[in-house]
């Protein structure tokens, strides 16, 4: 195992200070390695995730070569040649497990923002203290966006959240974690070849969830209650003016409908017909602003919470499509002996999360073991 940094590198270097997992402790498990602390329904901090993964590396005695960055993987005879910061290697088979979130995605229109406005990605963001005084525009309504917007608003700054389509969820449904329902009802077990629209499922933004000791819901209504202003999806920057979509009402309606359908599905699964107290619809401002002139100084910082993507810059095998996605069938990459793990909906919906690795790793290593001819000298 080659690791450019240390074990659990992404949790050490690529998360903001206050981040906690949005999956509860009992669900943030690795193969044969469970949380065994006093608070199974709580949510680990990044530091706790680091300790958890380090522990796992220890008990499994994983052969990790740390501080070894892979800079090139190319096809070579019946295997692959790897160039690393620690020298060259040959391998008959390679599992790509470099993560799905190596680079924060920033829309091209960011280039049109005036230089006086500071732009941050979630990788640059550590906490409110690192920001200048003044208003903040957070672009993106997924878990990252709502969490950062809430934290910045609580620090006293004026915050505007720009959101397109998003995934609304209550933290608890009938007193249980909404992710308990996802897990128990089998939603997360849906296989990649059973999902209606796989491309869409793989691109689905993370749900508006946060892990807090209070187990509080962090949907758009919660942000409105905190005093965050909602605007539509950022669609253009023209002469220093940000232009937002006028479709905020509909993206909220879509999210409300999808959430209702999901919760109704949970109830149906549980055989519960008595409806739970229904969550109020998302409150959309009567006239959301559709333009903000950056020249007025209202906004000093823009945070791009517009998703992440993998970096395949080091992969010199033609298996990445025109949109930068790896071509694979459930982790079996379109090149003999090449495999992938740790991508959204790789084999199941749960593949997107830490606990997805168990099934995925088993399936992928089984395929690898049966396709890899054992050399005669090793028989």
């Amino acid at each position, binding site marked *: 195992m080659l690791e450019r940094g240390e074990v659990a590198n992404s949790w050490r270097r690529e998360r903001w200070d206050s981040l906690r997992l949005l999956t509860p402790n009992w669900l943030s498990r690795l193969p044969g390695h469970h949380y065994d602390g006093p608070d199974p329904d709580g949510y680990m901090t990044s530091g706790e995730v680091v300790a958890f993964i380090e522990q796992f590396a220890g008990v499994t005695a994983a052969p990790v070569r740390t501080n070894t960055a892979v800079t090139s993987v190319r096809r070579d005879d019946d295997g692959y040649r790897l160039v690393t910061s620690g020298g060259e290697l040959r391998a008959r088979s390679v599992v790509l497990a470099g993560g799905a979130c190596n680079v924060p995605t920033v829309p091209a229109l960011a280039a049109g923002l005036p230089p006086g406005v500071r732009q941050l990605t979630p990788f640059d963001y550590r906490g409110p203290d690192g920001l200048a005084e003044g208003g903040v525009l957070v672009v993106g309504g997924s878990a990252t966006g709502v969490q950062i917007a809430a934290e910045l608003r609580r620090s006293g700054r004026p915050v505007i959240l720009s959101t397109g*389509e998003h995934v609304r969820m209550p933290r608890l449904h009938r007193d249980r974690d909404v992710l308990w329902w996802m897990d128990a009802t089998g939603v997360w077990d849906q296989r990649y070849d059973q999902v209606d629209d796989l491309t869409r499922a793989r691109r689905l933004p993370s749900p508006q969830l946060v892990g807090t000791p209070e187990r509080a819901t962090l949907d758009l209504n919660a942000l409105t209650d905190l005093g965050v202003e909602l605007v539509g999806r950022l669609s*253009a920057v*023209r002469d220093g003016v940000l*232009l937002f*979509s*006028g*479709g905020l009402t*509909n993206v909220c*309606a879509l999210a409300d*409908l999808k959430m209702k359908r999901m919760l109704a599905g949970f109830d149906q699964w549980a055989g519960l017909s008595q409806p739970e107290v229904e969550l109020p619809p998302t409150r959309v401002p009567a006239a959301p602003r559709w333009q903000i002139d950056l020249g007025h100084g209202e906004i000093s910082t823009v945070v791009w919470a517009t998703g992440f993507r993998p970096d395949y810059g080091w992969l010199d095998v033609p298996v990445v499509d025109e949109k930068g996605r790896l071509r694979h069938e459930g982790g079996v990459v379109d090149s003999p002996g090449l495999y992938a793990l740790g991508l959204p909906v790789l084999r199941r919906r749960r593949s997107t999360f830490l606990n997805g690795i168990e099934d995925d790793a088993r399936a992928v290593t089984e395929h690898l073991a049966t396709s890899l001819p054992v050399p005669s000298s090793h028989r």
Partner: protein
Amino acid sequence: MTTIDNGVNVQALLDAREVLKGAPDAAQFTWRASSKWQHGVHSTTTIEKFFGLGQEQTHKNETTFAADHPAVFAAEDNGITPIEYLLVGLAGCLTAGVASVAQNRGIQLRSVESTVEGAHDIRGILGADSDVRNGFNDIKVTFHIDADASQEEIEALVAQSQKRSAVYDALTNPTNVTVEVA
């Protein structure tokens, strides 16, 4: 299962989606209109040809639209106001979307009616107040739908039709517009 029929060939649309996924060039369409000044603020605009699927295409019939201003604008009212054409486009597009999504979801429609209202402060176009914009301040669409579906399914139809609507997108998001003199 009883077959439902809203008169939309959804299969053709789904097939086209699959084909065009791999053929982005064929998916490039250009819609065209030719306009001619008549008299006063009255103009006529004709639509017949467009480009798409890699070649010139022609509507079954040429259609001519008249635009004018109403009498309260001291005009002859030979046709609807240009900005009202946006309402025509929006209603037509959303209604088509409702019918298509319903067909795709197996929902039989009995009637789909809507009213579209665009709130317009005309001080903008008159130059009476530079803080007032020229276009609509907001647009409200109200659907009345009778269908074999629950209220929630109907709401979902309407939401999905907005999500896939060309005119809704064109009105809610900015578009670069270039006007030249040839």
